[in-house]
């Protein structure tokens, strides 16, 4: 993968370039938007990275170069970046950063760079071999050398993390899982609100996995019309929730075996929520699930293999107090095969 990194802060630009280089990619940092076109042409780059401040330039370059993808980072609310994600199908990743003097999180940059590079190699799609159902969340560690596929919790947390994985088939199991996740957070002696928030997030993601995702043989939603109904899913339909923490971060991953989540579900849901919170009742729910995810996490990762699975991962930084968390720029990543 060849990338051009437009970052006006040279130190930050160099640092991000180094992280890209560590994944085997070539990275050319530039600090002047006027140099971007030349750098793209010289390197035949397939990825342009920049702050959302330069989002117009990124969008323009992408329009002009068919093979080029875009990656944004931002220290501002996600709404500004979402505009570019909505307008361009080749911008799927937004990385939050603390301020304009700070780079995005190294772990996230490396993961995204590897996955983009892996996707660029156009391997034939197959399910994530590491995301098994063994009950050990660390089993989700990807052995994929290209990094193209959804990683397990190990990719999001530091070595030595702990967690659990639960299968969820019924409303009762959903409530038990939510309670266990909230208990898991409370056990870390973090503010009570964090536990409540994460429990709420788990409930939201599980509701989507259990009620929105399942379809019948004709592709018609099975339960989306009545969310009040108690349901029991078949073994092949069950949702899986993984929760893990390394003491600095919380990670929550919910997976369904249907792979029906579309990019526009995510983007439209976030756009509607961030624009003023108008509900969308067209699909049985309130259409605010994405906003709940956004408000409860530092970073969201959506991995979809169409017809195979949808996996949503949410991260929360425990070292921030809630006031800092509120103002923190959020990350959004959408992967689809």
């Amino acid at each position, binding site marked *: 993968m060849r990338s051009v990194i437009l970052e006006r802060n040279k130190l930050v630009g160099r640092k991000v370039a180094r992280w890209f280089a560590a994944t085997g990619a070539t990275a050319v940092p530039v600090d002047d938007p006027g140099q971007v076109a030349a750098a793209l042409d010289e390197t035949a780059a397939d990825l342009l990275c920049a702050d959302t401040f330069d989002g117009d330039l990124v969008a323009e370059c992408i329009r002009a170069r068919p093979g080029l993808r875009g990656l944004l980072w931002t220290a501002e609310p996600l709404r500004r970046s979402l505009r570019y994600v909505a307008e361009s199908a080749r911008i799927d990743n937004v990385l939050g950063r603390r301020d304009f003097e700070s780079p995005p999180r190294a772990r996230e940059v490396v993961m995204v760079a590897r996955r983009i590079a892996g996707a660029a190699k156009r391997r034939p799609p197959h399910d994530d071999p590491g995301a098994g159902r063994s009950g050990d969340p660390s089993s989700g560690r990807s052995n994929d050398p290209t990094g193209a596929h959804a990683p397990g919790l190990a990719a999001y947390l530091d070595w030595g993390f702990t967690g659990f994985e639960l299968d969820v088939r019924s409303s009762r199991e959903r409530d038990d899982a939510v309670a266990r996740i909230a208990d898991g957070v409370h056990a870390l002696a973090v503010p009570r*609100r964090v536990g409540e928030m994460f429990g709420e997030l788990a409930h939201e993601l599980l509701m989507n996995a259990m009620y929105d995702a399942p379809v019948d043989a004709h592709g018609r939603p099975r339960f989306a019309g009545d969310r*009040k109904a108690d349901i029991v899913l078949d073994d092949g339909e069950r949702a899986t929730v993984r929760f893990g923490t390394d003491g600095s971060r919380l990670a929550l991953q919910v997976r369904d075996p249907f792979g029906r989540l579309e990019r526009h579900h995510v983007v439209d849901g976030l756009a509607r929520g961030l624009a*003023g919170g*108008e509900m969308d*009742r067209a699909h049985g729910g309130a*259409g605010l699930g994405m906003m709940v995810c956004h408000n409860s996490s530092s970073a969201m990762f959506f991995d979809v293999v169409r017809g195979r699975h949808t996996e949503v991962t949410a991260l929360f930084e425990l070292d921030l107090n809630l*006031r800092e968390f509120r103002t923190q720029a959020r990350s959004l990543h959408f992967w689809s095969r």
Partner: protein
Amino acid sequence: MEAATHQPTNAPAPLDASPPKLTIEKFADAGIACLKFAGTIDESFEGKRLGDTAAGDVLVLDLGGVKKISSFGIREWVDFVGAASKRVRSMVLIECAPKVVDQLNMVANFAGGGRVFSFYAPFRCDYCDSEHRVLLQVDKDHETIKSMKLAERPCPSCKEGMYFDDDGATYFSYLLGQEKFELEPEVAAFLSSKLSYAVSDLSRKLRVDKVIEGRTTYLRLAGDLDGMFPREKLAEGLEGTVILDVGSVGRIEPAGAAEWRGFVQMVSPLVDALYLASVPAAFLEKLCGREDLGPKGMVLTFVLPFACKACGTTTQQTIDVEAHHDVLKFATAPELRCTGCKGALQCAASENLMSLLPELPKPSHGADLVRSIGMLRERAVQAAAQHKRSDKKSVQPIAVPEQRTSLLVPFLAASLAVVLAAGGYLAYQRFAKSDEPTGSVQRSAQVRPAWSNGLEPATASCTAADGGLACAGASSLAPRQDEAEDEAADAALEALAHAIGEKIADAKWQAVVPALYRSTRDAKLAAFKTDPASATARREVRDGRRTVAASLRASSGGIVHGTPADRYWEERGGADGKRFAAFARVGVTKAELAKLVAAYAKPSEALGATVVDAFPLVAWRYPKLERGAIVVGLAAGQLQEIGVDKGYVVLSIDGRDVGDGAAFARLALDEVGTLAIRGGSLRLKVQTPDPEPREFSAAVAAVAVDPPPGDPKKPGGGRTGPGPTPTNGGSGGVNVWDRLGGGGGAKGGGRDDPNQ
């Protein structure tokens, strides 16, 4: 009033004994209903169905117990508020939990047509790792909300500072878009008296509605029973059979209980019988013993909570004492059936309450009397509402309500006989705003004194008089004469304190002391000037002046006392009933003024600090501060080293109160001297710019018996311990050796030993 608790009707049947996800308690009285939510609002919440059951005039939603709201719960909630808002005149959201505030910020139309009156702000204390919630109201905390910043405040657990644990711009975003409003008085009264919510001081005031039917007088009391209970005025003219409907009495304070007992004692000889109706449990426990009821007092009906296990509801049931006396005398509750499922109800009252039941005398009345209470109550409420509506429409002075129909404040009726000439109206027209009472009906003197002319409501001014000062103050329009007179006197005294402050010429004093109160004082006065109709602004000015006046009286060495030299008041009739405006004048002679100026500016020095007496106007900023010493100068010394700064007010030293500047110097010297002997900590309680006082301390080591060789001149040379090193020998700038009999110069080893 009724109360009901239920969980969502279609919630899945619990498989175990786990508590319901969401409980909704309902309280209703007349046209006001309150739904209290606690738990999780999710897909099991039947929003529309519940909304369709809403009825009445005002619906209050208490959301303080909401823990979680799922996205589908949001949908149900929006359906609920949408349906409910169509069925009631207005909807008010109170005590919104942070989770609810998040949703208000995130979801369009989450409040439906309702308005948020109060909400919780999340606070966190890192010292003791605890979380707390602080209740804010859109009326009194409007400025705070606008500023989007909440100051740190003491943690209720550890008293260290806790901080607002959210982003102000995000958290207050919805509330900033909502206009400031105040609760309707009926709603405020309902919330404060029935449900013990903290709403506003005004709402807790006792209101009395009265209906006279033949020989029966019905009095409906609503509000808190406190020391302001007007027992004498209420007792005036009572005769025959008196029914006191106390169902809407809220909190009972000890002073209120004493007033009530006095009232019962006062009316017992005048009336044939004194019946209490709809007595709430708290009233029954505190004021319905044999002695409390007196020889003619009897409880007609009282209220007990009953639970229905079959349908999971809890309701308040009115018990007729005469009808159930045979059961009550055995301290048992009557057997009742649930009106919903017809199942047996179980009494949920406390054992303490049940033990009082056998003492209740059996009333000797007919069943007709109990039945008539409902009708009388309805008439009283209707008459009060009609009275209010007619008041609102009329811009003319209202007619005195006929005593035999309904009176909002009946005890004022007797004083309305004298209607003064129109000249009073002209003299008082400054008070006659379109929405305020008009028409003077009574006054303390035939002619309004000249010194009160030109004074706007709630203002004060001072004039020089023979080298002294004369300060006159005017009250705002108050519901009681004594309140108005107190307010006027406080305004005059506050103006006097302000004038004294301006006479102080000392540069250090002027550089430090006025800065402590000026901005707070100016802001509160400006807020009131900008919006004189604001109850909050008026209250803040009134309270500020009261504390300043009290401080002036206490600190003036007897020069300023509580009684004004001149007083004048007027009574006005108007839209909200009778109101009083009062004026007061206080003064000091030239000699007294000079003495006060000198006293407040007199500096005292210790520990490197120059201090003066706490000046009364500082009470604007620190209402609880009554005495202390203000630091106006700071040189090197122990006070500076421990972090005390200019403008701080020292309140106590080692737990001993600092009354004034001189006391500070005396206590400081004494304490440092003691510490030099024994060692220990110098502990000062100091009012800093933070709202609550802080403690400053520094370890002070006992002076060594033998100073280290080579450093014989340093008295603190042998000090040990981790405390800060004083620049002049560990005494904080005070030569403790002199006080202990040592010399200031070189000392022999023996003389340096304080034990000698």
